[in-house]
């Protein structure tokens, strides 16, 4: 499958997930957005050597993946983009920070190794959190949450249009590339002689399409702001859900919960 086809599939897949009528999907979008930001903020605020404390934060994705019927494999696939840079930055820590902090049999564990694992764990947890958000919330609802946060309507409408047309233009680009590869077999990528014309044609068509979209929007009564339909009101259980998780995150951040629980069993 080509890169473009994969992207189209991924967008459709995420759309399908977000439109499901699950318990998690029905939580108010602003609650989920605020909770995700709070979770990511808490995760990245852990000190670089606090691997044990950070491990406690795994409880959120663990619980939500189960109750939300989300695929763990799908979320792991998303790590392919983020992990290389995180690994590049973290892989050097064991070489520069060689202070021994413990041993595992005959193997000496250094502070650099701990900070490297912590960094990678942070990378994984933050990606999982954003996956939970997007897999249970549609872009329309996220944009609604952004409007509630007073993000300008102008920007939100543009964002929604971009999202709406991403799949359309991806499909168009895919068709162009398919036609090109049939005419230029065994060639990796687009030949430099047609860099301009191939992409330029798509660009001109996109510009023309923008004009048509605007006319259609005007015909449907567009006056500068996108209307989201009926307002989505947060219910009591939405606030409760937010409060519950915020307390859990604060608890794991401030106390060595895993150590305390472990201490109950190890005399």
């Amino acid at each position, binding site marked *: 499958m080509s*890169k*473009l086809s994969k992207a189209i599939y991924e*967008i459709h897949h995420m759309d399908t997930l977000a439109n499901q009528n699950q318990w998690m999907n029905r939580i108010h979008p602003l609650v989920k957005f605020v909770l*995700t*930001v709070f979770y*990511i903020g808490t995760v*990245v*605020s852990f000190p670089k050597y606090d691997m044990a404390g950070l491990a406690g934060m795994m409880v959120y994705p663990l619980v939500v993946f189960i109750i939300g019927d989300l695929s763990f494999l799908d979320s792991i696939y*998303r790590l392919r*983009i*983020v992990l290389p*840079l*995180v690994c590049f*930055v973290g892989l*050097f820590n064991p070489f520069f920070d060689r202070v021994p902090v413990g041993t595992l049999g005959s193997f000496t564990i250094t502070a650099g190794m701990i*900070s490297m694992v912590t*960094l*990678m764990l*942070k990378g994984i947890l*933050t*990606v999982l959190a*954003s996956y939970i*958000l*997007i897999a249970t919330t549609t*872009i329309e609802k*996220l944009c609604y949450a952004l409007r509630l946060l007073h993000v300008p309507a*102008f*920007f939100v409408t*543009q*964002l*929604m*249009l*971009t*999202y709406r*047309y*991403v799949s*359309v*233009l*991806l499909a168009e*680009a895919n068709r162009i*590339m398919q036609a090109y590869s049939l005419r230029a077999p065994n*060639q*990796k*990528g687009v*030949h*430099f002689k047609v*860099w*301009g014309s191939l*992409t*330029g044609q*798509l*660009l*001109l068509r*996109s*510009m023309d*399409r*923008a*004009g048509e*979209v*605007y006319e259609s929007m005007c015909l449907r009564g567009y006056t500068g702001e996108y209307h989201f339909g009926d307002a989505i009101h947060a219910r009591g259980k939405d606030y409760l859900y937010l409060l519950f998780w915020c307390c859990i995150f604060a608890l794991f951040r401030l106390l060595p919960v895993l150590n305390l629980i472990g201490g109950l069993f190890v005399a």
Partner: protein
Amino acid sequence: MHMADALVVPAVAATMYACSAVAGGFSVKKVRLESDPKKIPVMGIMGAFVFATQMINFSIPGTGSSGHLCGGMLLSALLGPYAGFLTMIGVLLIQCLLFADGGILALGCNIWNMAFYGCFVGALLIWKPMMKKGATKGKIIAASILGCVLTLQLGAFSVSLETLASGVTDLPFITFVSTMQPIHLAIGLVEGLITAAVLCFVHEARPELLWGIQDTKKKEGRFSFKTTMAILAVVAVLIGGGLSLVASANPDGLEWSMQKITGSTELESEGTVYDDAAKVQETTAVLPDYSFKGSDSVLGTSFSGIVGGLVVVAVCVGSCYAFKFFRKKKTA
């Protein structure tokens, strides 16, 4: 160059969010001032276009590898820095949410590193000044390459600074920078070439779509009155004063034909009318036979050329203005 959440601490993320929010707020204000309702769909679809084309691999000749389009520079060349910046924010937000390319917390950093430099620095400091006097293919290529290289270098440097400020790596700053900058120099060059190819195509097909050159484009090919006069004067001096010195001493076509028939290059006319006309000409001619009166010097020939040229220019310009004057009168 998308930064992940794990690479920043909350303080750095918040600072970069604040910086990006200021730039975003300023851009919203600027775009609103344009009060062009068509701008929103164009921005939305251009965002989708950049997103889609960034998935296309462009093969780099002789390397076996491929490159991608530089979104920031392309958007600012088409939409301007403010609308381009907002569109890039949309693209980065969707990339971060849908494809986990960058993080929600690191979005402020990514906006600054990619959208701010790409749109503001690329458009206002490179594209606009270079296109001030109209766009040419060469200028577009130069601006695209320079813009992409510079903005990517700035972005890569910012990534290093933000990572250093976050304290997540033990990698020395100099080592990190010296790894990031050369990689992004190569990426910038390739992205610049791809962006240049697309912008050159747009310039040839629909030049009115390019930002910052539309007004000057109308003037292209027309010189101002002063410039036209100066050029004509210089050309007249050069041709009349310089080239007249190397004029052929041989008879021209008509003279040559006459010489063949009559044996002389000049026709002898007899009669009072001819004599009177010749006397008037001798009296009024400033430079008889293209020389000063009573002299046959080279200087005289040059001077006559210059004067002749200027007189021709004056007659031509005068005729044109007279034509325009009478035409205006007729239409009125």
